[in-house]
Each structure stands twice: as C-alpha cells, then as structure tokens.
C-alpha cells in the first residue's frame, strides 16, 4: 500500500471530497483520498440531489450560480446512471404574501442574469396539474437541475484516479498530524496538506468547528412517469417552515429520471441517530399532501434520513483551517452540498494552488469569526 508522501490528502469521498480530489489531481497534485465507508455513502446518498441557484444571500447566490455553470459543463460527461435531469425548479406561492416574495425573487434572479418566469395561478396548474386548486402562483427557474449524487461522486473519484489519485478504502482517519493523517488501524499516511471533507462529522477531526448535524427525512415513491414535471419547492421553505430553532417540515418534491418522486423535507437539530421518525415523516408527508392531494394514492417504497452539516451563518467552510497550518476545510454546506460541490472544489484548489479565482472566495473562508466557538 503506497503511503505517500502525497501533496494533498482528502478525507471523505462524499461528493465534496470527490470533487476536491478530482480538481486537485487534475491540477497536477499527487492526491490521496481516505474514505471510511463507501464512496458517496453519507449525506451524498441521503440528499435530494438538487442543483439549484439560491437567492437567500449574495454569497449563496454567487457560489450556487458559479457551481451551476460547472455542473452544466460536467453534465455531458456523466453516464445515464447519474440521472442528470434539467427539470427546472418551480417555487410555489400559496397566497398573496408569497406572491410578493415571488416578485422579489424574480427581480433578484433577473437582475443577476438568471432566467426566471412568474406564473399566475392558472399557469401554475398548467405546468403542474397535480398541484391543488387555489394556489396563488409560482416562479419557474428553468435552469435548475437534479442528479443522483452517489453516482456523480463515484465518477469524480474515477476521474481523480485517472489523474493519478490513490483511494484508500476503507480507511478511517482518526487524527490529523503535522505530517499527514493517522488511520484507525494505526497506519500513517503522509501528506503536505489535508482536506477535511467529512460533512457533519468534521468535528470528529476538528473539534473547534461550529458545525451541527441537521437531520433530514426523505421518501421515494414507485415510478409514476408524468405525475410531476419540475422540482417544486414551497416558498414557506425559507421563512417560517425552516426556522433555525425547532424541528420543521417543508414541501419539496422532485421528479426523478426513473419516473419516481422524491419527497422532502424535514430539518431537525439535536437528533443523534438516523432512525426514521414516523411523527416527523408524517408531518412532512401531510405538508406535501396539502400541495398535491393525489399523493396518497401513490406507493412509497422507501424512507430514510441523513445529516446535513449546518453552520450558523448558512455558508460553507472552504479554505484554510485557522490555527492548523496544514489543514483545509471543505464542509458546512448544509442542504446545498451537491449544488455547491463543484464550486467548492474549484475555490479550494484556487487557494491551495494560488490561482486567481473566478468568484471571490473570502465569504466562505473558515476564519470568519462567528463560526468558531469562543
């Protein structure tokens, strides 16, 4: 087993780690990847796989928009199993207040060069006939897509290997040292720098990080092609439904390339185990049925949970770890890890290789003070 020295060692082969490994290997670095379990098996496999441009802050927009450009150039390389589906996102307004929010979002997107179209109640029903009557309208962002992230992670790891990277698996890193990492079995791998891309588990290796696991539930149905055409997201998603403090649910549904429907979403802090909680799953589905009354007629085949890596300011940590000169971070993406994985990798490599970035990376630097415990 080759034990280095490597230029860079990436811990975690979720989609963020896989993208970082691919980017660094393609840039000419000698890269190692340590994965404790399987490639793309954590939050990467649990999430919805949306590739969405977000408008909740300029920083989030900048990162998601840049990443979408990278996704669109990667998409033609991906195999059908990656299920890249450019279905667009349709934000649903239930009432007049939410229609006002549609107007605000429309102004934001169009002023930032993103195509967005306001739909009235009638146009909304024409776009999605299985929505209930009486909704106010929506905003169609046609450039958004969905994908099946574990297969993309596997592809990126394959590309990284193609560029010379070495995957150690299973290899659980228990300590980051000045010379590299130490594995559970006691072996050490030496590397000039270490990238922590272990999502909500990042605090196991860097305890000072203010990352909290935020549990989510999802459910997938059998195949019903034609039932749904776009990813639908209720506009309550950002205001009341997903408050930072309490458990919350929001309506979010995706058509998959298989004809299946993927239904979310829930957010919980404080839940430590991955058990499906029927009370929360029930609330989540009830919320979905309020928007799509035909859902109870369909068969669900599986429900599961995963853990997002949440930061207090809802922006990821991309860059050098304060006080740890050989450690870089690529975590804290919460619900946008798939969307922003490719931009994360590019910005991280720009910093490591001292290249000029295409967007400013300062907003995502881990050094921003409020992310750390006192």
């Amino acid at each position, binding site marked *: 087993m080759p034990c280095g020295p490597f230029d860079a060692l990436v811990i975690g082969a979720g989609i963020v780690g896989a993208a970082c490994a691919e980017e660094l290997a393609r840039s000419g670095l000698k890269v190692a990847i340590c994965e404790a379990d399987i490639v793309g098996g954590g939050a990467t496999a649990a999430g919805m796989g949306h590739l969405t441009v977000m408008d909740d802050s300029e920083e989030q927009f900048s990162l998601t928009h840049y990443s979408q450009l990278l996704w669109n150039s990667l998409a033609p390389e991906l195999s059908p199993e990656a299920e890249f589906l450019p279905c667009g996102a349709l934000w649903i307004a239930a009432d007049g207040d939410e229609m006002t929010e549609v107007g605000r979002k429309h102004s934001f997107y169009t002023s930032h060069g993103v195509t967005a179209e306001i739909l009235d109640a009638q146009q909304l029903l024409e776009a999605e006939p299985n929505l209930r009557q009486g909704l106010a309208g929506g905003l169609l962002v046609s450039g958004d897509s969905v994908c099946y992230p574990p297969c993309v992670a596997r592809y990126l790891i394959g590309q990284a290997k193609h560029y010379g990277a070495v995957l150690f698996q299973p290899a659980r890193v228990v300590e980051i040292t000045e010379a590299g990492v130490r594995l559970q079995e006691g072996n050490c791998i030496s590397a000039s720098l270490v990238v922590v891309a272990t999502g909500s588990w990042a605090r196991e290796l860097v305890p000072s990080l203010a990352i909290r696991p935020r549990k989510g539930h999802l459910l997938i149905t*059998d*195949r*019903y092609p034609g039932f749904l055409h776009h990813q639908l997201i209720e506009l309550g998603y950002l205001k009341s439904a997903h408050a930072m403090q309490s458990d919350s649910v929001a309506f979010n549904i995706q058509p998959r390339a*298989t004809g299946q429907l993927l239904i979310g979403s829930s957010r919980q802090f404080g839940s430590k185990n991955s058990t499906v909680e029927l009370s929360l799953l029930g609330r989540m589905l009830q919320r979905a049925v309020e928007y799509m009354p035909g859902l109870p*007629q*369909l*068969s669900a085949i599986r429900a599961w949970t995963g853990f997002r890596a949440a930061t207090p300011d809802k922006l990821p940590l991309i860059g050098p770890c304060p006080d740890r000169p050989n450690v870089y971070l690529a975590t804290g993406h919460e619900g946008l890890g798939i969307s922003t994985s490719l931009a994360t990798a590019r910005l991280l490599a720009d910093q490591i290789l001292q290249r000029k970035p295409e967007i400013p990376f300062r907003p995502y630097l881990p050094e921003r003070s409020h992310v750390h415990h006192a």
Partner: protein
Amino acid sequence: MPDLRVNGCRLVVPDGISVAAAVAIAGETAFRHSISGEPRAPLCGMGICFECRVTIDGMAHARSCQIQVKSGMDVRTT
C-alpha cells in the same frame, strides 16, 4: 358474478377471486414488465414481492394478488 375488463376484454369471473386470478383467467402471462423489459408475474401471492403489479382504474402499481375483483374494474397489464 363480477364483470370486469382486463386489457379491454370483458371477463366474468367467480365472486371473491383476486385481480391476479382474473388476469390469469384472461390468459395474460406478463402482468408487468421490469425496467429492463423482462416480463413479470405473481411470485409470492401475498403482497411482498410486488411482481404482480397492474394498473387498476388508472392507478399504477396496484398489487393484483391483494385486491379482490369488483364489477366495472378496468385492469391493465403494463
């Protein structure tokens, strides 16, 4: 005796039988086709294997072995 349609053909069957039995009486051997195009038919007969799925009155993925026939049903194999 229930009077139903299987793939558009009218069929009168004994009371109380399953839709799966009615589909078999109609002479259909492929209840559904898998994603890769293979023909499928009831295996377990008790609602576990999901191989017997048909479309009943427009609702896809109905497990025919678990549903009793009713007059007027429109059953489609897929």
